[in-house]
């Protein structure tokens, strides 16, 4: 690793996605972290790390999704993360998508809530994730996501 710390952007929607992302923190020890989520209240839970709130949006509201995409694109352009990590959902997918386009390395860890099949954003993220992970062994297939265990 170079002298400059790698900048890692961690993206998750409020609720379960966020809780799962936080479980991964031991993996990011020693790096510069920037958290991005949809819930302002979480700002008190990230220590001294940078914290960014984005609006919530899902595929059910196309206009909002487009607005969210613009916001995330601008953030990524300014932040220039070396790595983008997400556990879901829509904001995470968009961050992985734009992050990849801007040359960042990307990790998608699909939510453990998806026990029978990957989430929709998880399926789509596969194309843009350098490390594409599921938390259920049965869902790991050649050409699909891999399995290395779960957040619990």
């Amino acid at each position: 690793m170079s002298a400059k710390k790698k900048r890692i952007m961690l993206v998750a929607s409020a609720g379960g996605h966020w809780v799962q992302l936080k479980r991964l923190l031991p993996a990011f020890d020693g790096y510069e972290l920037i958290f991005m989520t949809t819930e302002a209240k979480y700002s008190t839970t990230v220590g001294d790390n940078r914290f960014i709130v984005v609006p919530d949006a899902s595929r059910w509201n196309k206009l909002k999704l487009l607005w969210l995409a613009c916001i995330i694109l601008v953030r990524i352009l300014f932040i220039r993360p070396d790595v983008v990590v997400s556990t879901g959902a829509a904001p995470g997918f968009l961050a992985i998508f734009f992050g990849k386009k801007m040359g960042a390395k990307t990790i998608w860890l699909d939510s453990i809530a998806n026990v029978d099949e990957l989430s929709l954003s998880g399926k789509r993220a596969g194309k843009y994730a350098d490390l594409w992970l599921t938390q259920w062994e049965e869902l790991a297939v050649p050409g699909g996501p891999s399995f290395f265990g779960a957040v619990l």
Partner: protein
Amino acid sequence: MIFVTVGEQLPFDRLVRAVDECAQKLGQEIFAQIGETEWRPKKIGYEKFLNPDEFNKRFVEADVIIAHAGMGTIITALELGKPIIVMPRKAALGEHRNDHQFATAQRFSKLNYITVAFDETELVEKLEKFSGGEKFEHEIRNIDPSPLLIKKIRDFLAD
């Protein structure tokens, strides 16, 4: 103390109401974070939303957690080693967009991580049993993230 949480995103009247209506019989202190739920409890303390500190405090103080089958709550219960009874949201009743909470609840109960009540009747039954001192159906433990998963990500980052 029993702590009830239905998350912040969607209402869950059926759950809050069932707990409220059996509260007197249980004779325990109950507090609920009801989010967007419309039903206003009469017998139990409640708050629409809690900030992360308050939420954590309630969670830590509770002897039992009652919740929707949301991953955030389930993981927090496993993190803190709290017994938890979940009732999954039903899409047919407009409680969620789909029935994925049923799949999650089933899978996690098979792993022996949680106790599931599939409807209100079952929830009340189980609550009464546990309040009466009967043992939980699942093993109470706290669980660390998979070391292999953490290592895989660390190696990837170091590359």
